[in-house]
C-alpha cells in the first residue's frame, strides 16, 4: 500500500523532462483495469509521446503526455496522465490505493479535471464497477468503450446512448488499435470540460458494511447492463463449454468419469504387465546368471554370498524396478488428464459424489487409482489441497484392493470355491469399497471431527492439447522421487526376508542351506501364529505367507509354494498340489470350519498393510507418524474383521 502523501494533479504539468502542458491547463486522468486497452488508447491519442516517470513523492510509475482537445472553439493542449491499471478504487493493491488517493484528493484543485474510465465492452460488468466508484466522486467523467469488435463477435450489442443515460457520463466508442474514435473522445473531453462537474452518484450510507456497499455498486452496474446491452440468452459457448455440459452433468458426468478411470486402470495394468514381466525375466535370468558367473570367478559359487546377492539384492532391485513401468504409465496418464484440463472436471464430478458419503470430494480419484496399485494412488493424493484430506485419503488408499491382491484372491477362490470363484473375487472388491467408506467415516468422526466441508467453487480451465514436454518432465520427476525413497526400503526388506529364510533354527541345515520350515522365518511365523487362532487360519504357513505379503502381495503364493515345497502353479485357476496343501492346513487350523477361515484370510489379506512400497510412499507423502498410525489401523481392522468373519461364520456354518 502507498502510505506516503500523494501530490495532487496540480503538480503534474511538468517534470524533469520539461513542461507537458501550460500551467493551469486541464489535466485528464486515464483509469481502467489491466488489459482493457488503456495504454493502447493513451498511445493512440497522444501519438505515443509518452514520458514515463515516478509520480511526485511516490515510487508509482505513471505515463504522461500532452494531448490536444477541441475546447472553447480551438484546439487546446492538455495533460493526459495514464494512471496504473486498477480494477477498482478499493484500497487492495498499491496501484489501486494510489489511484483512489489521486481521484479523492481533499482539495478539488488537486483532482483531475476529467477522468476517462476505459471500459471493455465485451466484459462490461468487470469494467463498470470502477465506473460506479468514480461516479461516487463529484467530477467530470467520460467512459471510453473499447473491445466493441470482441463484443460484436460474442453477439453483445451495447446501446451507447442508453449506457450514457444510466451511467450519467459521456460514453464514447473507441478502437485504439485502429485509431478509431480518438477524435470523438477528444470532443467528448472538450465537451465535458465546458460543462460543470457532475454531482456524485447518490447512494445510501452503508457505514462499515463493505459487502452491502459493493453489492449496491454491482446492482447499479447490473441495472446499467440490463438497460444498455443486448446479449444472447446464453453466452456463445466454446467447444470447452459444450463438452462440459456432458462431462460435468450430474448423472452423465460420473459415468464418463468412471469410464475414464476404467481406461486409466486398464491401460496401466495391461500396458505395464508385459514390461513388468520382461524386467522380472531380465533380473531373474541374465542379470542373476551374470552375477552367479562373476561370483564363480572369484570363488564364491554356491556360497551364502551368492544366495544373498542373487536372491536378496538382485531379487529386491528387480522387484522394485518392476514397479517402474506401472508408476511411469500411471503418472503419465494422470499428468495427461491434468494438462488436458479433464482433471478439473473430474474434481467437480467426484466432489458431488463424495459429499454424499462425507469424504473429501477429490479423494475419489486416488481411491480409484488405488484399485490398480496403491503406490501411485498415494502419490495421487496430491490432488487434494487440504493437508488433512491428503492424510485421510492416504490412510484409506491401502484399503482399496490393488491388482497384486487379485492373484491371491483368484488362487484361493479357485481352491475353495471353484464354482463361485468369480463371485468371490467380485465380493472382495465390494468389501474393499465398504472398508474405505466405513474406515473413512470412522476416522472423520474421531480424528477429524472439526474437518468442515468448505464451500468449494471450481473455475474450469479451457481444454487444451497436452504438452509432451510437460508430461515427460512431470512423469520423470515423480518417478525419480519414488525411486529415491522406495528403493532403500524395498531392497532392505527383500534382503531381510531372504536372510530370515537362510538362518537355520535348531540342528537342521546350515546358513543359506536350510529348509524353510527350519528357518528363522518359520520360527518367527510360529511365534505369532497363536495371535491368529481366533481367525481360523492360525497355521504358521499362512501367517508366514502374510508376513512375506507385507513385502509384496505377489510373494504370498511363491512363499506358500516354497513352504510346502511344491511347484508354484502356472495357472492360478488350477492350483493343484499347492491348493491341496493349503486346504489341508486351513481344515486343521479352523477345526473343520474351512469356509469362514478362508473368508477371514481373504479379508485380512485385503485390509492389512499392502506392501513395503506403499509404506515407503506413505512415508514420503504423509510422514512417519501417520504412516505408522495407518499401519496400526490396517492391522487392527484386518484382525478384528477377520476374527468377526470367522467367529460369526463358524456359528452359522
Amino acid at each position, binding site marked *: 500500500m502507498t502510505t506516503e502523501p500523494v501530490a495532487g494533479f496540480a503538480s503534474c504539468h511538468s517534470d524533469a523532462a520539461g513542461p507537458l502542458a501550460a500551467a493551469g491547463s486541464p489535466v485528464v486522468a486515464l483509469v481502467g483495469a489491466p488489459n482493457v486497452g488503456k495504454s493502447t488508447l493513451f498511445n493512440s491519442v497522444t501519438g505515443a509521446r509518452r514520458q514515463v516517470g515516478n509520480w511526485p513523492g511516490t515510487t508509482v510509475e505513471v505515463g504522461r503526455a500532452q494531448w490536444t482537445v477541441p475546447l472553447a472553439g480551438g484546439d487546446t493542449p492538455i495533460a493526459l496522465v495514464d494512471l496504473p491499471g486498477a480494477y477498482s478504487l478499493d484500497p487492495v493493491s498499491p496501484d489501486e490505493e494510489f489511484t483512489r488517493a489521486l481521484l479523492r484528493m481533499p482539495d478539488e484543485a488537486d483532482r483531475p479535471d476529467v477522468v476517462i474510465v476505459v471500459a471493455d465492452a465485451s466484459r462490461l*460488468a468487470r469494467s463498470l464497477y470502477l465506473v460506479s466508484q468514480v461516479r461516487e466522486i463529484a467530477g467530470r467523467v467520460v467512459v471510453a468503450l473499447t473491445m466493441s469488435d470482441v463484443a460484436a463477435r460474442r453477439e453483445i450489442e451495447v446501446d451507447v446512448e442508453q449506457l450514457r443515460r444510466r451511467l450519467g457520463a459521456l460514453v464514447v466508442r473507441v478502437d485504439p488499435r485502429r485509431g478509431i474514435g480518438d477524435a470523438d473522445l477528444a470532443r467528448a473531453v472538450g465537451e465535458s470540460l465546458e460543462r460543470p462537474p457532475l454531482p456524485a452518484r447518490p447512494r445510501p450510507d452503508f457505514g462499515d458494511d463493505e459487502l*452491502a456497499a459493493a*453489492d449496491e455498486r454491482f446492482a447499479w452496474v447490473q441495472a446499467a447492463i440490463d438497460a444498455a446491452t443486448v446479449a444472447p440468452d446464453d*453466452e456463445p459457448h466454446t467447444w470447452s463449454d459444450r463438452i462440459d455440459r456432458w462431462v460435468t452433468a450430474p448423472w452423465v458426468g460420473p459415468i464418463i468419469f468412471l469410464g475414464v478411470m476404467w481406461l486409466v486402470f486398464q491401460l496401466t495394468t495391461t500396458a505395464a504387465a508385459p514390461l513388468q514381466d520382461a524386467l522380472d525375466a531380465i533380473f531373474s535370468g541374465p542379470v542373476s546368471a551374470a552375477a552367479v558367473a562373476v561370483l564363480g570367478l572369484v570363488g564364491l559359487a554356491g556360497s551364502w554370498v551368492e544366495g544373498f546377492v542373487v536372491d536378496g539384492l538382485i531379487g529386491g532391485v528387480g522387484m522394485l524396478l518392476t514397479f517402474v513401468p506401472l508408476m511411469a504409465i500411471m*503418472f503419465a496418464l494422470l499428468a495427461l488428464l*491434468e494438462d488436458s484440463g479433464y482433471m478439473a472436471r473430474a474434481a467437480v464430478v467426484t466432489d458431488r459424489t463424495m459429499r454424499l458419503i462425507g469424504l473429501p470430494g477429490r479423494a475419489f480419484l486416488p481411491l480409484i487409482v488405488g484399485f490398480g496399485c496403491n503406490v501411485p494412488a498415494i502419490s495421487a493424493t496430491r490432488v487434494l489441497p487440504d493437508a488433512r484430506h491428503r492424510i485421510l485419503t492416504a490412510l484409506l488408499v491401502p484399503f482399496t484392493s490393488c491388482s497384486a491382491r487379485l492373484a491371491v484372491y483368484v488362487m484361493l477362490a479357485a481352491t475353495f470355491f471353484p464354482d463361485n470363484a468369480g463371485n468371490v473375487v467380485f465380493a472382495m472388491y465390494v468389501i474393499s469399497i465398504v472398508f474405505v467408506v466405513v474406515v473413512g467415516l470412522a476416522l472423520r468422526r474421531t480424528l477429524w471431527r472439526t474437518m468442515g466441508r468448505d464451500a468449494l*467453487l471450481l473455475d474450469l*480451465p479451457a481444454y487444451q492439447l497436452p504438452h509432451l514436454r*510437460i508430461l515427460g518432465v512431470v512423469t520423470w520427476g515423480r518417478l525419480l522421487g519414488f525411486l529415491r525413497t522406495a528403493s532403500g526400503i524395498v531392497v532392505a526388506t527383500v534382503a531381510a526376508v531372504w536372510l530370515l529364510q537362510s538362518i537355520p533354527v535348531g540342528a537342521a541345515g546350515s546358513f543359506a542351506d536350510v529348509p524353510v520350515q527350519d528357518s528363522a522365518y518359520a520360527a518367527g511365523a510360529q511365534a505369532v501364529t497363536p495371535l491368529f487362532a481366533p481367525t481360523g487360519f492360525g497355521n504358521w504357513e499362512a501367517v508366514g505367507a502374510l508376513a512375506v505379503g507385507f513385502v509384496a502381495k505377489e510373494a504370498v503364493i511363491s512363499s506358500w509354494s516354497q513352504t510346502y515345497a511344491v511347484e508354484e502353479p502356472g495357472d492360478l485357476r488350477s492350483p493343484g498340489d499347492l491348493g491341496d496343501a493349503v486346504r489341508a492346513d486351513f481344515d486343521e487350523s479352523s477345526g473343520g470350519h474351512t469356509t469362514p477361515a478362508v473368508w477371514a484370510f481373504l479379508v485380512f489379506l485385503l485390509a492389512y498393510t499392502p506392501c513395503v512400497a506403499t509404506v515407503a510412499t506413505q512415508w514420503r507423502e504423509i510422514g512417519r507418524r501417520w504412516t505408522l498410525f495407518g499401519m496400526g489401523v490396517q492391522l487392527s481392522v484386518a484382525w478384528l474383521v477377520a476374527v468377526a468373519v470367522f467367529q460369526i461364520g463358524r456359528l452359522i456354518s
Partner: protein
Amino acid sequence: MSGGPLRAVLGAVEGGAITSADIQRTTGLSMDMIRTSLEQLVRMGYLSAEAMATACPPTGCGSCGSATPQTGTCATGPVLIGLSRTQRAG
C-alpha cells in the same frame, strides 16, 4: 440472502454451487457478472482462491521443470482454481 448480484453469487456458493455454471443456474446472472462477482469476493476476502495441480511437486513450482525461469510458475497447462469460503463469510 437478498440483494444484488454480489450477495446472490455468495449465496449460491454457500448453497453448494460447485461451478460457475451452477451459479448461473441458481442466480440467472451472466457469466461476466458471475466472474466479476467472484473476483470481487476474492478481493474482499469472502472467498479464497487456490491453484491446484496433480502433477506439481510438493515443494512447489520452484523445483518443477515446467516452471518458467522468469516467474517460477507453470509455463502452461490449465490449472484448477479452487475457491473456498473463508471465515469472514461465515
